[in-house]
């Protein structure tokens, strides 16, 4: 094991100072950041009128009341399968997007990416762009450095506080809680949650950043397994860029290469030794066509300098690449300046890089995306989605569950009647109390009696479940009384709008 002796067991994080970049992907990311952060921070403040008995917050997770409100939808605990269904859809959606477009989730919409982007933005505002930040990092801790660092940390803390603050607003009435938080009247849980989330936001967005993606997040591993040769992802056109070089030497070599190429081209048909494509199995890569002198890559490191993960895309596919697209913007900018075509770095399927090497046309994008795998994911995703939507519209605003009381199975009354008891739960999802009439069908002989009242109507409070003991009585000598089990059906009718719901149960006679 002598080989391990020379390797360090652990290493310090290499600081990364992403440079500012402009371009279509950067603009796209700004838009996504504005939309996602906007949704996150503003959603708790949207109001939605549900009547006087229910909260008027559009999106509210009411843990104490065990309700989830989402605009016109209200989810009760027993309907948690909606959440499970949404999670399944989220999983399948991630599979679909990853197999088609690589790690787009990581690059554009993952909260870690969005918040890190925001933290890098504020860092740049306060400390300057890449070069200024590198200088600041290297210099001694003087008054200016302290001032910049402390103001940056304060801004980060405020962002973290807003993040944690917005989170707790999802769990209780936001305007009330906002006042309570300021006047120090809020529940300790709110402050604790905010403190924890403030801390983790600053830690992950400000300090840990790419470490979260590389070392803490399981998704890079899983997503790597989702990608295949047709997945469109960010890659470097090695055949076009290599061999890279810059400056005076580039010009000198270009002149030499012209002469060499002239000779080689006459002899071998203009090919260079076979070079493996990084990230693809060895032997897959075709030979890089010989070219006169250097490739298009001028080795300016613009793609490396803008990378928030601190990697070099020219090394090929790698786990740390979140495919944020900023290297594309940076490289296109450089290509424009040196008068070369754009797209030295760009979105492509890795097999297309090989095709281009051979001088073939790349496969059309639509053929990459439409393949059995993505079609299967889309189908599954849609089926779950349709199922959920159908379930959402099928469910009624009232419901009933019936649990027969089995201890004892039946009671003999003084007139010889046989009585069964049932625990009936009446669900009223309306925002006001409703009168429900309970009835039973299945055998004409049986009648119903509601505990504690001579009537068959009970009032169920708004947005609640009422547990009601209900008796079903079969007269002496009747079939249900003498027989074994008789199938019966409980009906509940909302007397306001006539909605009905039922639940099947059985009546136990003495004959079993």
């Amino acid at each position, binding site marked *: *094991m*002598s*080989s*391990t002796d*020379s*390797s*360090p*067991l*652990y*290493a*310090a*994080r290499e600081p990364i100072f992403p440079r500012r970049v402009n371009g279509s992907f950067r603009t796209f990311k700004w838009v996504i950041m504005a939309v996602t952060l906007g949704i996150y921070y503003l959603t708790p403040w949207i109001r939605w009128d549900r009547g006087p008995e229910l909260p008027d917050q559009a999106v509210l997770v009411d843990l104490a009341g065990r309700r989830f409100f989402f605009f016109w939808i209200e989810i009760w605990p027993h309907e948690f399968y909606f959440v499970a269904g949404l999670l399944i859809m989220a999983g399948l959606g991630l599979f679909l997007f990853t197999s088609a477009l690589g790690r787009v989730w990581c690059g554009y919409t993952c909260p870690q990416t969005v918040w890190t982007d925001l933290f890098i933005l504020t860092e740049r505002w306060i400390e300057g762009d890449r070069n200024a930040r590198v200088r600041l990092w290297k210099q001694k801790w003087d008054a200016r450095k302290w001032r910049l660092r402390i103001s940056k940390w304060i801004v980060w803390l405020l962002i973290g506080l807003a993040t944690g603050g917005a989170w707790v607003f999802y769990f209780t009435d936001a305007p009330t809680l906002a006042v309570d938080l300021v006047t120090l009247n809020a529940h300790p849980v709110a402050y604790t949650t905010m403190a924890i989330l403030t801390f983790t936001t600053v830690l992950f967005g400000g300090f*840990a950043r790419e*470490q979260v993606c590389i*070392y803490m997040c399981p998704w890079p591993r899983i997503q790597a397994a989702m990608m295949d040769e047709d997945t469109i992802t960010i890659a470097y056109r090695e055949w076009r860029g290599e061999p890279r070089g810059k400056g005076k030497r580039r010009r000198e070599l270009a002149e030499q290469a012209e002469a060499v190429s002239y000779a080689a081209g006459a002899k071998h048909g203009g090919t260079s030794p076979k070079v*493996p494509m*990084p*990230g693809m199995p*060895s032997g897959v890569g075709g030979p890089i066509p010989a070219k006169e002198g250097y490739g298009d890559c001028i080795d300016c490191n613009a793609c490396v300098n803008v990378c928030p993960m601190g990697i070099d895309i020219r*090394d*090929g596919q*790698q786990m740390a690449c979140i495919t944020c697209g900023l290297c594309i913007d940076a490289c296109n900018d450089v290509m424009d300046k040196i008068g070369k075509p754009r797209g030295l770095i760009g979105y492509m399927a890795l097999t297309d890089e090989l095709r281009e090497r051979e001088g073939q046309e790349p496969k059309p994008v639509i053929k990459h995306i439409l393949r059995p795998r993505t079609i299967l994911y889309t189908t599954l995703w849609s089926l779950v989605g349709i199922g959920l939507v159908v379930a959402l519209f099928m469910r009624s605003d009232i419901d009933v569950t019936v649990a027969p*009381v089995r*201890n*004892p199975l039946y*009671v*003999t*009354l*003084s*007139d*010889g009647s046989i*009585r069964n*008891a049932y625990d009936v739960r009446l669900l009223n999802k309306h925002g006001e109390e409703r009168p429900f009439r309970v009835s039973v069908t299945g055998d004409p002989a049986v009648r119903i009696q509601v*505990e*504690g009242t001579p009537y068959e109507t009970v009032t169920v409070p708004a947005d609640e479940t009422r547990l009601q*003991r209900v*008796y079903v009585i079969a007269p*002496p000598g009747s079939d249900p009384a003498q027989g074994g089990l008789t199938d019966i059906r409980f009906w509940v009718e909302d007397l306001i709008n006539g909605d009905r719901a039922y639940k099947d149960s059985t009546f136990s006679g003495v004959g079993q």
Partner: protein
Amino acid sequence: MSAEEKKDETTGVGTTGHEWDGIEEWNNPLPRWWVYTFYATVIWGIIYTILFPAWPMVTRATAGMLGFSTRGQVMADIAAFEDKHAGLREELAVADLNTLNENPDLQNFAVQMGSSVFRNNCSQCHGSGAAGVQASGYPNLLDDDWLWGGTIDDIAYTVTNGVRNEQSPDTHWSEMPAFGADEILSGEEIAQVVQYVRQISGQEHDAELASAGAVLFADQCSSCHMEDGTGDPALGAPDLTDAIWLYGGDVATLTETVTYARFGVMPAWSEEFRKGAGLSQTEINAVAAYVHQLGGGE
């Protein structure tokens, strides 16, 4: 393993030299913060075991400096619960049970509490479902037939004073003669009375014996069970005409009942009579409210 350091060709990352079917183990260094996090968890673990119960000792685990225990937490929760309901408990102790249903909060509290009191104290005889045990003469509390009355006040009185229980001066007391054992009636006469009781309760019977039994019944039984056999809750005399039997309505059981009589007993549950093991007035009212709403309350 070779002495020189191996490197992965494509990435230049060192490998440990371990290789399985061409898959090599890379030797990337761990991030330093990861190592520090590990140290931090070790320190956290040490502090935690000092502050909280942790290390198993001979008789019990170390208590921890903070004095925390899950049992203590439960006791605190119970105390908080009791505090929260202290008002309702006091209210229930002096409540007029007949108007309990006008106060849904109090009634709900009483029924919930009564359910627990019932399971702890009454279910041993009456069963957890309150259906009683006919073979032993423990009455079914779910039906609409009551030996000593089924209003909520009646139930509370019975619970307080018991049945045939000398600890309470106000206990329910009735004494049916042992007609056979004390030789008041002959075996033949008992058979006649039994057939008459089966007649008035609507069961199969021998009409001839029953008509003779009717005379004996009017003589011997009607003073308590009433002339029509419907009984009297004030005397604890059961209704003999209905479909409900405390011990059973078949010939053998009825014959045994008439011959030897039955003397079911029930404890007087009031604290006054059962020092240290009785029920408080709150608990008596609660269990009365619970039993009253089981389906037979009058």
